[in-house]
Structure formats: C-alpha cells, structure tokens
C-alpha cells in the first residue's frame, strides 16, 4: 500500500485506470436518479484518467518498460499474477483510450441529453473505460483476457442500451455470443500456454517465444487459438457480422467501442504478443489471409448500405482487417500506427454521423442528405476530413498509416496481399465518398419542406440546441478529433521510434539463431527496416492513386452533376444482394444456430429429458405402482388363495431342504 503512494507512476496508473470503476459504482449505487450528477462524476473521472494517461506517456516517454506485479493468488503450481506492464505500446494505447473516451463522454453530454437512461449510460461508459484501460496495461495475458471479457460486457450493455428495442438487445446478445466464440479459442490458447509453458506474463511470453523457450507446436497451436480471440473481438472473418449490428447502440458508443478502441483491442492484443505470434509462421499466414478476406468482404458490404453507421462499421471491420494484415505481414509499427490514426478518424467519423443522426433522427444517408445535412457546417466539414483520412489522402493521418501498411504488404514475397491491400484502399475510398457525396449532393436537391437546418425557424428547441450546450458538447470533441486527424500523420517517425522500443531487441534475437526463430527474427527485423524500402516513392504513388481512384469513381457516380446516383453495383443485383446480406454470413449463422442448436440439439435434449430420462423415471414409478397393483392380487379376498400361497411356500421350503 505504501508503494502505491510513494511511486507516482504506479499511483497515476492505479488512479487513472480504476477511477472509472468507482465512478460506475457510485452511479449505479447512489446517483441513478440524478442524471446530471452521474454524468459529471463520470466525465470528471474519465478526464482525470485521460490526464493520468497523458502524464504517464510524458513521464515514461523515453523510459524503459516498467512492470508492476503482484501475486493475486496461487492454486497448486498455478500462479495468477496481476500487474501493469507499462511499455510504449500500452502507454500509447492508454492515451488513445483515455483521450477518446474522454471526448466521447463529453460528446455524450450533448448526444444523450434527456435520455431516460442517462445515468445508466454513464455507468456503463465508466465500466468500459475502466475495463479498457486495465486491459491495455495488463501485465499478463490472463489479466488481459479478464478485462477483454469485461470490455465485451460493457459493449454488451452499451449495444443493448436501448433495451426496449428488440433489435438492440438482439444485437447486444449477438455481439456477446460471437465474441464468446472467439474468446473460447483465446481462453483455450491461454490454458494451453498455461499448461505447456506455465506463465502468461506478456514480456516473458514474448521473450520465451523468440528465444526458443516454448516448443514450436505449442506456439502455433496456442497462437492460432489466441488469434480466435482477435477474430471475435476485432470482428474478423468469419465472426465479423456482429459489429455492424452493434450499431444499434448510441452513436457515441459506436464511436468509442465499436470503432476506435474496443474492437481495436484484438489488434492491440495481437501486437501485444506480436513476437510470440511471429514465432509461428503458420499462425501469421492464417492471420494474413483472414485479415485480407475480412478487409475485402467488409469493404464490399460497405458499398451497398445506405445506413451511415453501417458504412462506418463495415469500414471499421475492413480497417481492422488492414491492421491484422499488417501485423501478420510483420508490420508491427504499421499496424499500431494505423490503429492510432484509425482511432482518431473513425471516432471522428462516427461522432460526426452522430450529430447528423441526432439532428435528423435517421441513419439513412439519402434522407439526411435530402433534408439538408450539408447545412450543418461543422460536422460536414469534419466528416469530410475523416473520410479523406480514411481514404488515405495526403496529408491526413490515414495516408501515412495506410501507406505504411501497404509498404509492409509489398514486402511480402507473395504480391497478392499487396494487391488486396490496394484493392481495399480503392473500395474504402469509394464507399467513404459515396457517403460523403450522398450527404453533400442529395439526389433531388434539398427538400426545404422538411428542413431541419440550422436557420430554420419553427423548431425552436433545435434552434436552441444547435447553438446551446448540446450542440457544442458534440461539436467540440468532433473538432478536436478532426484536428488530430489532420496532424497526427506527421508524428509518424517519432511514434515509430517510440513504439519500436517495445519489441525485443533484434541483436538479442540474432544470438538465438535457431531455425524456428528465423521467421520471428525476420518478421521483426522486417518491421524495423520497413521505412528504408528502396522503392518507397513508387508505393506511395500507388497507394494514393488507389485512394483517388475510389474517390473518382464515387464522384462519377454520386458527386458530379447529373450523376446516376445508383452505383455500378446496382447493375448486378445478385452481387448487390450478396453484399447487402453480408455474404450470407448472418443467414448462415442463423440457419446454423436454428437447425443445429435450437431445432437439433436443444430440442433433442429437451425431448430426451422429458421422454427418456423423465419418462424413464416416471416409468419406473408407474412400473413400481403397477407391480404393486399386480402383487395386490396375491392378497385376494379369497381366504384359500391366501392360504395356498402360504402353504405352497412352506411346502416349497420343506421340499428345498429335503432335496
């Protein structure tokens, strides 16, 4: 306890990460009925957390990784250790989470104003912030897993925030269960490691993996299993469909959890034990393939939907796919960097969309556009900035990170991954600007009648809202994020320098030049040397032009005067349907669940319980009673039958003893 107060770093860590928990407890227990107080408590605590995070980052910017740990309990030979691991990666992530969570909570002051579940909302926001921050700085995989689950829990509650809406609770459930599917793999992987290696400490694990401390088979198996967790949490193929559904939650939630931070946890976890993963080329190959498939699939899905948030959700999935690809290709920094920038611009995109949605009470981009979405100047500007960043247009942050990823992909021996990356970039730009153009240039111009714009008289409350607290609570965070998206890219080199310190030093790897480790060493050194690719400029041009191509197609179809506004895909209804129905993944799951689980096993088991087991037991009872009835015939009223029984048995006994 004393150490807690003596060590400012530890103090800041503990305070920063756990304050939201207390704010949640206080809100749930005491201030449920006082929304304003609740929101203040929550925002205040997250602000403190964010400040702690930033100060930690500043303080430890050039310090070596710090580790705090304490034995939580032990069972047999199993030691469960809790602790913090403060290295550049976790500090960076902590800061991202802190800042974005803080911004989103401030934004929510406006967005959620007047909601009956206001207090509850902030309680769950705090829960999320607490879990996420603890997950980020977890020192061991088990701790990471625990908070990983807690994050999922917060996500469940926040997705199902409007629980009166059936689809919302359904989406929450879906998210939780799908995550669970992945998590079981994760969990099994951890158990395997625990059994085979005995320690889940992250630095130890990484170190052991690259220095031949764990057998190759175990690494591959457990890495693949752990990767299941990534698949679930980061909505990779084939578990990607929960994320679009998760948009049922309030928009700030989508911004925070389902794009910027929580879903990135998968990628974060991947990068956390990147050296471990990279010790298994097989696992990396699988991850690469899955990342690519995810990216393409979700991009195609985004191309056909008209729902604002859905577009960004698909886009999130596809960007996560990018990051996974990058990691799997060895681009450690590229992925982390993309994660960072993506957190910024995707939160921006969501928050801007949130303003539209709040304003027009619809998610449909066509209606928003028609009703004058573009008249909301601040969000319109910001969303465009976000879209540009997403499309990888210079000088926005996305440009830098995407370029980094493409470079890494290019370094792969098989160029198909690079091609996929480029193709993805085209699609990304296309669907982003399809949305932007829908908002900017609605099909039949702006309908003045139902105009809800800024200067429209008659909707007094909105008037007040736009100018008042509600509007600015939403607008300021958006503007901050827009600013970040503009400038973040220029910090690439500083960040790279900072982040790469959290990887084991290449020289050390070189010393253990064992065949199994080559891959890891290769991957790591590749990541380190990426920047010095010889034909960097060519790649840059290719990347940017892919983005511009997408924008151009979108312009052609939606932006220009007299554009068809139909999209080329509408000429192929089958493909449209395929994309619209998410490649039939949902239908597949639904059918599978219905036939296999509900109609199959469940009804089988229930029937088995009723008929066979219960039936058997009742049958035994009926049989017993029946035999009672049967035997009661022995006791007939006829005296002599009774006597015969008696004499016969006596006689038989006599006979038995005689013979």
């Amino acid at each position, binding site marked *: 306890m004393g150490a807690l107060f003596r060590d400012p770093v530890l103090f800041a860590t503990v305070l920063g990460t756990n304050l939201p928990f207390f704010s949640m407890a206080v809100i749930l227990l005491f201030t449920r009925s006082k929304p304003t107080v609740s929101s203040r408590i929550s925002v205040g605590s997250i602000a403190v957390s964010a400040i702690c995070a930033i100060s930690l980052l500043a303080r430890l910017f050039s310090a070596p990784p710090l580790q705090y740990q304490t034995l939580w309990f032990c069972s047999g030979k199993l030691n469960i250790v809790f602790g913090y691991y403060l290295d550049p990666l976790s500090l960076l992530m902590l800061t991202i989470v802190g800042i974005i969570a803080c911004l989103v909570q401030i934004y929510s002051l406006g967005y959620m104003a007047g909601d009956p579940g206001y207090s509850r909302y902030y309680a769950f926001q705090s829960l999320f912030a607490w879990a996420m921050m603890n997950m980020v700085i977890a020192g061991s995989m088990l701790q990471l897993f625990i908070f990983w689950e807690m994050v999922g829990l917060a996500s469940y509650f926040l997705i199902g925030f409007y629980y009166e809406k059936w689809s919302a609770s359904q989406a929450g459930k879906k998210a939780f269960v799908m995550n669970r599917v992945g998590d079981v793999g994760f969990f099994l992987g951890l158990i395997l490691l625990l059994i085979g290696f005995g320690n889940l400490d992250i630095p130890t694990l990484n170190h052991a993996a690259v220095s031949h401390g764990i057998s190759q088979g175990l690494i591959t198996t457990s890495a693949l299993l752990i990767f299941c967790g990534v698949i679930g949490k980061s909505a990779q193929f084939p578990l990607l469909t929960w994320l679009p559904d998760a948009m049922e939650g309030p928009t700030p939630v989508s911004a925070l959890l389902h794009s910027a931070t929580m879903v990135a946890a998968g990628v974060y976890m991947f990068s956390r034990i990147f050296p471990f993963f990279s010790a298994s080329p097989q696992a990396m190959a699988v991850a690469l393939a899955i990342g690519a498939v995810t990216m393409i699939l979700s991009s195609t899905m985004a191309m056909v939907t008209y729902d604002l948030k859905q577009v960004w959700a698909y886009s999130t999935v596809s960007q996560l796919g990018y990051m996974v690809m990058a990691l799997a290709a060895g681009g450690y920094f590229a992925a982390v960097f993309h994660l960072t920038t993506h957190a910024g611009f995707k939160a921006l995109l969501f928050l801007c969309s949130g303003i539209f949605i709040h304003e027009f009470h619809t998610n449909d981009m066509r209606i928003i556009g028609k009703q004058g979405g573009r008249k909301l100047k601040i969000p319109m500007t910001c969303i465009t900035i976000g879209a540009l960043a997403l499309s990888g247009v210079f000088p926005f942050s996305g440009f830098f990170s995407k370029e980094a990823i493409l470079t890494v992909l290019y370094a792969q021996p098989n160029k198909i991954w690079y091609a996929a990356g480029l193709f993805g970039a085209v699609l990304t730009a296309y669907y982003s600007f399809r949305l932007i153009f829908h908002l900017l240039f609605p099909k039949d111009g702006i309908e003045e009648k139902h105009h809800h714009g800024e200067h429209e008289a008659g909707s007094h409350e909105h008037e007040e809202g736009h100018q008042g607290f509600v509007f600015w609570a939403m607008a300021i965070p958006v503007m901050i994020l827009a600013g970040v998206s503009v400038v973040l890219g220029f910090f690439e080199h500083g960040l790279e320098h900072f982040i790469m310190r959290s990887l084991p030093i290449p020289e050390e790897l070189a010393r253990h030049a064992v065949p199994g480790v080559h891959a890891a060493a290769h991957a790591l050194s590749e990541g380190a040397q990426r920047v010095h690719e010889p034909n960097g400029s060519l790649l840059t041009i290719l990347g940017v032009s892919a983005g511009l191509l997408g924008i151009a197609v979108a312009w052609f179809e939606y932006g220009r005067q007299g554009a068809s506004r139909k999209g080329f895909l509408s000429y192929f209804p089958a493909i449209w349907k395929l994309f619209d129905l998410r490649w039939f993944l949902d239908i597949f799951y639904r059918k599978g669940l219905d036939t296999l689980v509900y109609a199959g096993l469940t009804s089988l088991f229930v029937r088995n319980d009723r008929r066979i087991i219960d039936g058997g037991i009742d049958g035994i009872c009926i049989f017993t009673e029946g035999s009672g009835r049967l035997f009661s015939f*022995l006791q007939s009223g006829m005296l002599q039958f009774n006597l015969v029984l008696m004499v016969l048995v006596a006689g038989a006994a006599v006979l038995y003893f005689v013979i």
Partner: protein
Amino acid sequence: MTDFMLFLPELFFILGALLFFVFSLRKTPNPAGYHRWAAVVAAAGLLVTVASSHQQGMLFFNCYRVDLFSQIFKVLLGLGTIWVIFSSGELKGIDPRQHAEYYFLIFVCTLAMMMLVSSVELLTIYVSMELSSYSLYLLVPMRRGDDRFSESGIKYFMIGVTASGLMLFGISLLFGVGHTTFVPQLVKTLPSLISQPAAIVGLVLVLAGFFFKLALFPFHVWAPDVYQGAANQVTTYIATVSKMAAAAMIIRFAGLSGGASPGMIKLLIVLSIASMTFGNLVALIQKDIKRLLAYSSIAHAGYLLIGILTLNTQGFASAIYYAAAYLVMNYSVFMVIMKVADDGHNLQIKELAGLYKRSPLLAMTFMLGLFGLAGIPPTAGFTGKFLVFAAAVDKGYLFLAIIGMVNATISLYYYLIVFKAAYLLKPVKEYPAIHVDMWTRFMSISLVIMTIYLGLFPQQVVSLTEAAARTLF
C-alpha cells in the same frame, strides 16, 4: 422369595386378567371405570416389569428363563400394552358391554406373550403362543358395526390355526431329531444335526409359526384384512405388542441353527426380500390407512429379518433395537389414527386432511412416526435400519442393504402420501377440532422425544440390546 420376584410381571398381568374376569361378570358395564382400572393395572405392570428388568434366573424346572433378553421384551410388551390401554379411552369400535372382556383378553394376551418370550421349552412356547393367538382371534371379531369387516375374524382364525398346525408339525420334527423340547439343549445339539432334513424343516416350520405372528411374507396374508377389520385399538395391539413377541421368538429360534445351515439363511434372505418388496409395493396403492400400515408392517418384518438372519450378536441386537423402535413409531402413528378416528371408524387417508390445523401436536407426532417408519433420520426408525443394515453388511450381505434401502425409498412414497394428506391437503368437509387432553398431549410429546432420542442417542439402548443378544449365545 426370588422365584416369585422373577415371575412378578407375569403375576401382575394375571392379576389384571382376573380383575377383568370379575368385572366381566358384573351386570352393568362401566367402560370409563374399566379404562381407569386397566390403565392403573397396566401402568403398575409396566413399573413392575421395568423394576424386574435386570432379574435373572430359571423357573418351572428350567422351562422358563428370565434374562435380559426376555426382560427387555417384557418391558416392550408392557409398554405397548399400557399404550394400547391408554388409547382405549374411546373404545368405540367395541360394544361397551364387551369392554371388560376386551381388557381381560388384552391382559391375557400380554401375559401369554411375556411367557412366550421367557419360555425355553417347546411345549410351553407353543401353548403360550396359542394362548396369545386365541386372545387375538377373539379380539378381532369384537369389532362391532360394519359387516364389511366381519370376515376378518374368520380369516385370521383360519390362517392362524393353519400356521400353528405347521408350527406344531415342526415342533414334532424338532422333538424327533433333538429328543428334547428344551431350547437350551436344542441349541447345543441342533447345529450338529442341522444337515438332517427333519431338523432344518422342523426349525423352518417352527419359524413359520412366528413368521405368521410377525406377518412376514408369505405368512402375512391375514395382516391386511385383520388390520382393517379389527377395532382400531385391537389393530394397534396386534401391530405393536404382538410383533414384539414374534420378533423375540424369531430371534431365539433363528439362532438354533447356529449359522450352520446356509440353506436356511438363504431362505431367510429370500423371505426378507420378498416381504420388504411385497409389503412396500402393495402398500403403494392402499386407501385405508390401517390397511396401508398392515402392508408397511409386512415390509418392516422384512427389515427386521435382515438383522436376524445375520445370526450373530450384532444382528440380533440390531433386530431388538429395530423392534423397539418399531414399537414406538408404529404406536405414534396408531395413536394419532385412534385419536382422529375417535368414533372408531376406519380412517381413510384422505380423512387426515387438515390434521395440522385440527391438532398440530398430533400432526407432528404423526409426521415423526411416519418418517420413523420410512427410516428417515433423526428418528429411531432410521437408526434401527442403520443398525440392521450395518449388521447385514458386516456379514457380507451388501446387496441386502441395497435392496433394503431401495425398498425404503419405495416406502417413502406412500408415507409421504399419508404425510401429504395430514399436512397439505385441504379437507373436503369441515372436520371438528380434535380434543387433545392433557394425557394425550403428554403422550404425544413423550413419543416425539422418544423417537428422536432413540434416533440420535442410541448408545444406551444399543449397549442394552447387545447385552441382551449376548445372553442368547
């Protein structure tokens, strides 16, 4: 004079019998007065029996042995008798003009059974047994009123005399091979002769006579009809007191083979299993509570036999314990039945409905009695079963314990049905509250305490029964 002291309990009951013989000659019956007298005499008899419970000695030219074994059973008999007499306050099932004879026969029967448990000579045993049987043959048809039940008397009689015929035949065979009618001598000679068919058959047939008394399958055939057909008090007497004597005699005679005959043990095992199973199964479908208890008593005879068929001290001790426990529990149940059916009619299970409201105390006594019979701890019935099964398993009869326990589970069903009636069911019509006087209250509480005390603190009783069982060897 010590001999006189040894015979004191019996003398006391003879006195009682004679007293009521005199009463029976009077012109005008006085049932209430008879009841008081009977209670006083029986209570005094019980006191005397308890006081002489540690006597030892031989009487009547070695025909009659007074030892711990016999005295324990005499105490049980005396206890049962005073209980039955206690409950005879409202003897509505029997014509008031016959009450004097009723008490006379009860006393004679108890006396006969006391002599039975002390007798160690075959003829004495047989005659005592017949005396008790005749008293019961006469008690059963005393039930007045309902013609439905009149046949039970003749059934009891016919089955009884047949069984006694078998027993007499058996005695003759024992006499033939053993050349003597004295049990102590037979104990010495019989084990070596047991390979002779006559010896074992004689023994089995003698046992058959006692099995009849105990209502063991297949000699149980009288029990359901008689339980149902006799007056409630008489049923109680048959169900409690007369079982004690039968148990004592089976213990005495089963030991005669000295464990030398595996065939007999097999037979006993078969009978015990058959009895448990049959009794419990048929009890499942009964509606009349006395008839149900008849079947339950058949099953209990089976449990009791498990203890006996181990043929060792431990087993006999457990059987004695079981018998004592059975007396207490069975009487608890019957007392409540008699109290509820105080007009002497045959109680149907559904008539118990709402008992918990009519008299919580009786309901509790009833519940404990039922759970005791079902063998649920912490009642005496459980400890009895435990001891019996322990003896059996110790001897290697694990399967008997399993079968016994499965049977106990089956039996639980019908006990629970009765329990349910008493505690759960809403009565179909409004029954009046039961008048529970001070004595009944006292009796209920003491029965409850006894049931639980015997169940939880068996040490003293167990050591007593073990000492008693040791006197048999």
